[in-house]
């Protein structure tokens, strides 16, 4: 069993800011020898803990392969990951930040589309009249597939997006999108609207642990410090 407890923290964005606030609130002080650009850190009162700053998606991957013992990431990213990875990770605590919804959004001017059932009808229009499938841009192909299947939508094609998903319908890269929305203002600003029953998942930041590390009492105790 490893002596050092490896903790993965988000390396950028709002998730990082909120994580740092949480640590501060719980009297956990981060020390980085190389300053702000250092990918490693330690915690002042936990000499056997090593902190690595990683992309929130990477944290899930590394918890799955056992490189990390503990990590902070989003529930959306956990549920989007492969099933075999999810089975290796336990949600220890849901945190009070990073709250958002993964939603289905369509162009504002598609005024005839209010529900997923409408979307399903329109997808058949694409198949029958245009001999193509409705394209859905997303960073969450697995969650999107699962949701659409549960709602009876089958005639679509996933376009994997790496960022700025909101502009896809207006650049000709997709017709609709699924994306994370916390207030909905970004979608609105980009002429998109959320379907009435288009909420795929409610997400928030979580403390996650590798199931491999859980039998170690020391590691379980560290989770309680957050």
């Amino acid at each position, binding site marked *: 069993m490893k002596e050092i407890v490896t903790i993965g923290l988000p390396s950028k964005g709002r998730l990082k800011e909120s994580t740092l606030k949480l640590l501060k609130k719980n009297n956990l002080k981060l020390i980085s020898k190389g300053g702000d650009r250092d990918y490693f850190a330690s915690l002042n009162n936990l000499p056997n803990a090593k902190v690595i700053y990683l992309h929130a998606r990477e944290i899930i991957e590394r918890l799955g392969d056992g490189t990390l013992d503990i990590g902070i990431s989003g529930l959306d990213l956990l549920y989007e990951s492969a099933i075999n990875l999810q089975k290796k990770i336990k949600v220890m605590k849901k945190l009070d930040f990073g709250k958002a919804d993964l939603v289905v959004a*369509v162009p504002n001017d598609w*005024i005839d589309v209010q529900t997923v059932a409408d979307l399903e009808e*329109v997808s*058949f*229009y694409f198949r029958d009249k245009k001999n193509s499938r409705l394209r859905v841009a997303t960073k969450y192909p697995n969650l999107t597939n699962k949701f659409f299947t549960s709602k*009876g939508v089958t005639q679509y094609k996933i376009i994997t997006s790496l960022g700025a998903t909101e502009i896809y319908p207006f650049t000709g890269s997709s*017709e*609709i999108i699924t994306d994370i929305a916390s207030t909905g203002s970004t979608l609105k600003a980009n002429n998109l609207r959320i379907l009435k029953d288009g909420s795929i998942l409610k997400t928030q930041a979580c403390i996650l642990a590798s199931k491999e590390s859980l039998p170690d009492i020391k590691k379980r105790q560290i989770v309680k410090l957050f």
Partner: protein
Amino acid sequence: MKSKNYSKKISEVFKKRGFVFSEPDILLDSNYIIQRSGENFKKLMLTFEDDSGKSMCLRPDLTVASCVKYLEDNSRRASKIYYSGQAYRRSNNSKDSIINDQVGLEIIGSEKKTSDNKEVINTILKSINKIKIKNVIVNIGDVSLFRQLIDSLKIPERWKLRLIRHFWRPKYFEDLLGILEANSDIDPITVDFDKKRFSEMKKLNQNQEIAGRKIYEILSRFDKKIRDPRSFAEGKKTAKIIKEFLKISCPIDQMDKYLEKFFKKYNIKKNLIKNELPIKSLLRSNYKIIFSANFGRDIEYYTGMVFEILTKKNKREIARGGRYDDLLKSLGSKQNISAVGAAINLNNLSKVTR
């Protein structure tokens, strides 16, 4: 070994009845299948990319593969074919095998629907008898009855299409009936807001596209939708009729009696709804045959008669088949081509005779 012997004996029955051996391709163009079956089916297929980047798959289904072959051969005549081979697909049930040994038959391009239905089901029953499988139950349905029932109901066209499309997804179908009952697919607040946008959009160039749809297409669908004449009470009544219809289940000799009683109760003209089941022939057989209006909802391409043969003891499926008149068109045929077929599952057959 056992399954090879079964395959040989069953093939002999097929040959004697005029079916000709045909070997469908093992590799198919994945997009061909996904275009018809949708994105979700993709995960059940065994796919790979060839050197040119084209996505190929191992044939997930021998009926689909046989139809693809029929179209590639450019056959215009009625074909009576049989095959013996493997289908490769994952299942949602992890206990199921990825490789399915099957021996099956298809009648493609013939318009003699009732007699072809009879020939397919009788040939399969004869084959089962030949390999001395005795204690079986036959479940039979006719999915066209549901389509005809929906057509006879006074509901908006888009609701008819929606219910017919989702007949294959029982769970989601239940949700749809809930929406129909509560008339909750139109949100009055959003519609009021969108009506303003409707007027503005009417002034724009109607051929302008918004994310792949022309403005006139969006406006025409919107207009049709808000004019939906359905009232709450009608939605509730329609859902009740559909639910009650799907509960009809009885021995085949009582099917007419049950259906007539149902039509009378809801004042549905019975001449609007006809089945193509080979009833007389089935009544003469010695098998226990159960008709169920709810049966056959798990394979989307069936359009009429659908049946399965199960062992009485552990209800293991040993054969399944049905009519699929729309499949060839969805695979690229310019004309409608009628077809009916069935396959015997050799993996399950070997298990029940172990």
